[in-house]
């Protein structure tokens, strides 16, 4: 089954998207408002996957590097870049 990609930026002006409506699939209740996306959801799919992998490997960059088939400093650099990006997103809130 094809899982649609979760959009995080506007396809028209590339600005950040907000959640304006949430619905319950079992009782069809709809909740409307203006909810900014949580920081983690404002990352790209690849970045979210990276964080998930980091978590699943209990924070071991060495194991991650070994499983991903890349070198330890490359994994560390990606983590550092991601940390900087998240700090920037947090400071914008």
């Amino acid at each position, binding site marked *: 089954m094809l899982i649609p990609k979760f959009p995080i930026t506007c396809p028209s002006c590339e600005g950040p998207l907000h959640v304006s409506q949430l619905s319950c699939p079992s009782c069809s209740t709809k909740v409307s408002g203006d909810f900014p996306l949580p920081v983690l959801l404002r990352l790209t799919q690849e970045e979210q996957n990276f964080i998930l992998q980091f978590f699943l490997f209990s924070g071991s960059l060495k194991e991650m*590097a070994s499983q991903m088939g*890349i*070198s330890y400093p490359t994994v*560390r*650099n990606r983590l550092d870049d991601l940390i900087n990006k998240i700090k920037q997103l947090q400071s914008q809130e």
Partner: protein
Amino acid sequence: MKKTLLNPFEKYNEAQLLTFGVIALVLCAYLGYFFEIRFDNILHLSTAKNITFLQSLLENAVNLLCVFVFLYPLGLIINKKTRFIDILNTVVVARSLCCLMVLCTRAFDMAGINETIINNSTNPYDIQFTPVQLAIILILAFLLIGILIWHIALLYNGFKTATNLKSVRDKILFAVAILLADILSMILIPLLN
């Protein structure tokens, strides 16, 4: 393939890179001894007579250390998490290209060309190379320049991977470090003899 040749540091782990680098270093030293080539500084070769394997190995080691001594502290300044082994691998893997330089230098018969230059050393304008000699000089020049560019690219990519290099200032400092390493090797290598 292109990525592996220009930036093996992203793909291979430190043990693999170090093993390759050390083998290449020893091979380089042996080729220098066998083909009578000296490694005057980090980016230069010259011919030599009666060079021993130990001398050749020592010259390679000194050249390697000269680069390391500047790149490692710079790496720590740029990124506190820079590891010793990553900078060492950068230097050792980049140095492996000297093997290619030695082989290229000896692949062509330079004896006739050297003789022409020596015989006309008093007046360079009298030097007349044959078309074959000119072709050899051009091919060798392109090959060696290509290998030199590859060497610098490996040093840069390895350093970038080890330190997560980003700013222009840090890139300029990298270039300055290489130049200083070259100067240091030019001072230290003659002291070995």
